[in-house]
Structures are given as structure tokens and as C-alpha cells.
């Protein structure tokens, strides 16, 4: 069994290499990454640049590799069935599951190889950025403390306001190192645009009232504000009290602020290295790509290559769009809609109902697979915990790909291999 699966996987890899698929993709990825690295300016700081590079690079590598993998997978079985090379394989004592798994392993190994290339590039880019900036300059600190790090986010719980001050409670994670900084992240609701920044004072206390850290800050009304708190100050406690006092500064500045209800006040604690986080991000991406490979292979068992490619892409796009569809037909939006057209009686046709049910069904079926987001998190220095990598592998590889594997084997077994579809 192992011999046969590895034999088929090896053949798939060899074919991908010798048909120049791998080398073309290698250079394409390299060109893409190098293009980003050379052209992205960001906000002008090294930290901003690297952050943007990471976010663009991860996004585009994901898309390029996703398409390439789907392409390879859709063709892998369907083309061999069409040109009949499969005949010499299936008359050998090979079970359909060995055939499917071998192909799948081969394809995901190719994807893994290319992901490693991208990962290596980004790792080196991070290393170079770090080497270039002075470690004590604000830019160097931002790079080190906010991007080239893996930070765990701990949400604070709002406990109300006292004396015009907003008040939160927060439990510290178990092991907090003495080095580096934790970053407080918060956001206001801005009713108008281009409001001037507000000044305020953040106080961090232990639950029994001892002040650990206190600082004045200037915060923008729109966008995310960040405040670094030295970890050395937080060392002795397991829970924190966070207090924000607005300090109105004369005419024209806001007299109150409202914290954004959907963005918690969050304290980010460093808990790992950038390299480790990059690796976990790549593993998440690998799981997603492996699912695409499974989809392509299974669709390729019944369709010819172009039809398989079209069907698989349509499925992927439908899955992605199903989310937007559901949002747009959510109650608050449809109310807003009625508001604008008083006279229109909103008719819901049966096609709309069916469409909505399909979209909701698809969204429901695919929700566990779409839960894993990588992009912004790596660039923001947010940690991707190992537990999430495990979960993702379990769900995407064992559940979804496993299901697709079973389906693919069933269809392979049932169909007449020598009959073109």
C-alpha cells in the first residue's frame, strides 16, 4: 500500500517538475515577491513597509498557489483518463484510494515546496529589515515589538465608567516575559470625519488599586490606536485594571468619546517569535491548499480537465461569495433598503428564496473551513496558536479532504475509465 501510494506521489511530483510546472511557478512567485519587496513603500517606515509586504505577499502567494494547485489537481486525474495513461495504472493491483491519495500527496508536496520558497523569502525579508534598522530607534522598536513578533491578544472586559473614566478588567496570560512591550489596542466611534486627535490618560492598575503604569496619550478618532506598555511594569500581577480618562483640550476637541462596540480593547502580549508564527501561517495556508487539491482531484474524476477546472473554480467562488450574499440579505440591510424606496413593496420571488437557501446552506457547510484567516494576523504580529493549526489540519485535511477523497474514490470506482465523458 505504502509502496504504491508513494510511487504514484513520486510520479506526480516528477511530472510537475519535468513539465516545468514547478520551475515556472517558482520564478513567478519569486518575481511577485521581489516585485512587492522592491516597490512597496508603506508609510515610509521600515515597520510599515514590512507590514505591507507581509500582508500583500501572503495574500498573493495564497491566491497564486491556490489557483496553481487547483489547476494541477484538476488535470491530474482527468488528463490521464483522457489520454488513457491511467489504463496502465488501474489494471495494476492499485486500489482507487491509493491512486487518489498518491496523486493528492504528490500535488500537496509540490505546493508545500513552493510555500517553503515563499516562506523562506519572507523570513529573509524580515531578517534583513531587522538588520537594517537601529534597534533603539522608534522604527526599529516598532519593527521588533509589533511586527517581527508573535503576540497573543487578550480582550479586556468593559466594567463601566466611573467619574468620566472608562474602565476595563483583563486577565494576564500565564507566562509573561520581562522583556519587551505589550501593546494596548483600542478604537473609537467617530461620527464625523477628520476629527482632530484627542488626548487622554491611560492608567494600568492591579485589581487592588496599585498603579503599575500610567501615561498620557494622543489618540486618533478614526483608526486603531496603539499604546506600548513595558512588560517589566506588568510582571507582578495576574489581572489588570485599565482606565481611560479623556482630557479635553479646549475648543473644538471632543468632550466625550465612545469606544467602538465591535472592536474590543485588547492587550497584545508577546508570546513567540516571528519565524514560528510565519511557519504556522504557512501551515494554515498549506491546509487550505491541500483542500483545494482534494477538490480538484475529486472533480477531475468525473469531468474532463477544462470542465473540472471550471466546476472547481465555480465552487470555490460560490463558497466565497456565499458569505457576502448572506450579509447583504441580513435584516438590517433589507430594512435600509426599504427605507430608501417607500413605495416599493418588496417581493421575494421563489428564485431569490432558493438562491438564499442555497447560499445559506453553502455558507453553513463551508463555515468551518473558512474560519481560518491568516493574512492580516501575520502582518500585525498576532500569534497563530498551534492549537489553531491542529484544528485547521483536522478540519480541512481530515474532514473536508477526507470526505472529498471518499467521494472521488467512489466515483472512480463506478465510472468506466476507458469511456471519455
Amino acid at each position, binding site marked *: 500500500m505504502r509502496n504504491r501510494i508513494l*510511487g504514484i506521489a513520486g510520479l506526480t511530483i516528477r511530472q510537475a517538475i519535468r513539465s516545468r510546472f514547478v520551475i515556472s511557478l517558482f520564478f513567478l512567485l519569486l518575481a511577485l515577491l521581489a516585485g512587492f519587496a522592491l516597490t512597496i513603500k508603506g508609510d515610509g517606515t521600515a515597520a510599515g513597509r514590512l507590514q505591507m509586504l507581509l500582508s500583500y505577499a501572503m495574500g498573493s502567494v495564497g491566491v497564486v498557489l491556490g489557483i496553481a494547485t487547483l489547476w494541477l489537481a484538476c488535470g491530474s486525474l482527468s488528463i490521464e483518463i483522457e489520454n488513457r495513461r491511467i489504463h496502465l495504472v488501474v489494471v495494476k493491483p492499485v486500489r482507487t484510494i491509493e491512486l487518489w491519495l498518491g496523486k493528492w500527496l504528490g500535488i500537496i508536496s509540490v505546493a508545500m515546496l513552493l510555500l517553503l520558497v515563499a516562506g523562506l523569502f519572507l523570513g529573509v525579508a524580515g531578517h534583513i529589515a531587522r538588520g537594517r534598522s537601529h534597534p533603539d530607534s522608534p522604527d526599529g522598536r516598532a519593527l521588533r515589538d509589533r511586527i517581527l513578533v508573535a503576540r497573543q491578544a487578550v480582550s479586556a472586559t468593559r466594567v463601566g465608567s466611573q467619574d468620566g473614566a472608562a474602565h476595563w478588567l483583563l486577565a494576564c496570560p500565564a507566562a509573561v516575559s520581562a522583556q519587551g512591550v505589550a501593546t494596548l489596542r483600542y478604537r473609537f466611534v467617530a461620527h464625523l470625519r477628520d476629527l482632530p486627535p484627542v488626548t487622554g490618560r491611560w492608567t494600568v492598575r492591579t485589581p487592588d488599586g496599585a498603579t503599575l503604569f500610567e501615561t498620557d496619550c494622543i489618540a486618533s478618532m478614526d483608526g486603531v490606536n496603539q499604546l506600548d506598555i513595558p512588560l517589566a511594569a506588568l510582571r507582578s500581577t495576574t489581572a489588570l485594571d485599565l482606565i481611560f480618562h479623556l482630557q479635553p483640550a479646549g475648543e473644538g476637541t471632543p468632550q466625550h468619546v465612545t469606544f467602538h462596540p465591535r472592536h474590543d480593547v485588547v492587550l497584545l502580549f508577546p508570546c513567540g517569535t516571528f519565524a514560528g508564527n510565519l511557519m504556522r501561517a504557512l501551515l494554515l495556508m498549506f491546509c487550505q491548499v491541500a483542500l483545494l487539491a482534494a477538490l480538484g482531484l475529486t472533480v477531475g474524476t468525473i469531468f474532463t480537465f477544462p470542465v473540472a477546472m471550471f466546476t472547481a473554480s465555480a465552487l470555490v467562488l460560490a463558497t466565497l461569495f456565499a458569505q457576502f450574499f448572506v450579509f447583504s440579505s441580513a435584516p438590517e440591510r433589507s430594512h435600509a433598503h426599504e427605507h430608501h424606496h417607500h413605495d416599493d413593496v418588496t417581493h421575494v420571488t421563489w428564485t431569490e428564496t432558493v438562491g438564499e437557501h442555497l447560499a445559506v446552506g453553502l455558507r453553513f457547510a463551508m463555515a468551518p473551513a473558512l474560519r481560518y484567516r491568516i493574512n492580516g494576523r501575520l502582518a500585525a504580529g498576532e500569534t497563530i496558536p498551534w492549537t489553531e493549526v491542529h484544528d485547521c489540519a483536522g478540519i480541512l485535511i481530515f474532514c473536508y479532504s477526507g470526505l472529498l477523497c471518499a467521494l472521488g474514490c467512489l466515483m472512480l470506482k463506478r465510472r*468506466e475509465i476507458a469511456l471519455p465523458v
Partner: protein
Amino acid sequence: MTENNTILDVVKLTKIFRDFWRRPTVTAVDGLDLSIRRGEIFGLLGPNGSGKSTTIKMLLGLLHPTEGSISILGGRPSDVAVRKRIGYLPEASYLYRYLTPRETLSFYGRLFDLPAAERRRRTEELLAMTGLESAADRAVGEFSKGMARRLGLAQALLNAPELLILDEPTSGLDPMGCRQVKELLRALADQGTTILLTSHLLADVEHICDRVVIMYNGRPRAAGALQDLLATPERMTLDLPALDAAATKRLLAVLREQLACEPELSRPTMNLEEFFVRVVNEAAEDPSPANAAGPHMAPFLKQ
């Protein structure tokens, strides 16, 4: 053996191809009965499009019969255990073009789950037997049809099969190759390998088949042992060294007395194939790759 020496038993095999809307388009095989015994060479003959390849694909599970039953090596075509004991050479080269012959044989060897050492040994022996040693590390995509055919034959023999199914084994081969293949098949059959082959080139199979079925339009039209089918009991041939004119005259006179009609005298000629083989053998003092494929068989097949 519980199979009491019947390797393959096919009853009322029928295949109707259908179009997308399930309407029948062609009846490729129509009520074929076959029974093949261990160790014989069985020929499935017929013109193009008579359903030979379709029959073979059903025997291998590549197509599903519309009707009829197949018992092959005591099992069904889809059984993995059955497929372990079969070797198959398809009608055209379905080899991977990016692989070299060595890699090709190694790959199919893995599918048979042969241990690495055994795989290497058989690969080398088969490459030597088919005369592909000098091309062993070139991509199969660059091969001529005959070379691909030889490699196809080599992969069919990898598992030392009990039942060898060959779809037009001699097509694309030069006369030397043809002859070598025929000699090889004869030798394999003498060792107990059962062989089912198809052909529309009758001269190629005439000398080696024990029994044949002749198909036309999917139906068997004649079947039986080749000797019986080709026997012409009302005639005979006398084969003797050339006589001088006087002796010939006396002989004819004697014969004329016995026969109602005039006897016909002719001198046998070589057929073109024999002549070709002789010329090439004389020309090739040093063996070229084409005839390096000696009559020797891969040692692992001699068991």
C-alpha cells in the same frame, strides 16, 4: 487448481456504447463466448473495429459489460488479487512521456509492490531483453513507436504474469522485432504463461496461436484450434529436394496415373519476412540495438 485449468471464462459478453443521452450508438461486442485454458496462446482476430480492444478492456475492468459475465483467473476483473497476476499491453503506447524506461519500469514495479531490489533486477533484465538498454535513460516521449512498444511489452512482463493480455503486440514493430516477440511469446507459453492476443495481421499470429476466434462486427464468426481451422484434408503437399528434368518427368508421369487432374509443380520461395531476417542477420555483424534483443528471455521469467 479449482479453476480446473480454465484461466478465463466469458459468457455472452455484450457491449453497447451509448451517447450522452443514453441512446445506443454501436454494439461493439455482441454475445461473445470465450474459454481460455492455462498455457495456451489464444488469438482474438478480426478486422479493424470488430470489437477486439473493447473485449479486452472489459476483461480488464476498463469497461463494464452491458451484458454477460466474466470470470478471469477465478475472480472478477475488478479484484486487486486478480490484477496482480495479469500483464497488459494496450493497443497504443500509454506510457508517461516524461519518464525514462528505467523509471517507467520502476514505477509500474512499485504498483506491483515488488521490493526495491527485485524491482531493480527485473528492470535491468527486461531492458536487456527488449534491447532498450542503450535508451534506458532517455525520455519515453522521444521514442519511436516500436521502441515504445518494446517498453510496453516489458512493463507487461514485470510481474511474471500468469495471464498475458496483448492488444496488437506486433503493431509498430519491425520484422526483427516481430519475430523476437513471437519467439518470446512461444517460449513464455511453453513455460505455462497463458496468452491472449489480438491482431488484424494474420501472418503475425498464424504461427503462434493455438486457438483463435475470428470476430466481425462484434460477433464471433469462427472459432477453434488453428490446425483444425486451417486444415485442408482434400489436398496435400510433397516437399523434396529439387530433381533433375528426367526424374521430374518420371515422377509426374507416375502422379498423373494416380490423379484425375494434372499435378502442379512449383518451387517454394522464402517469404519476405524470412528473407528480410536473413539479410539483416548477415548485415549485422555487430549487433545494433534493434537486434540486440536476442532470443534470450529475462532470467526472472524462466521459472
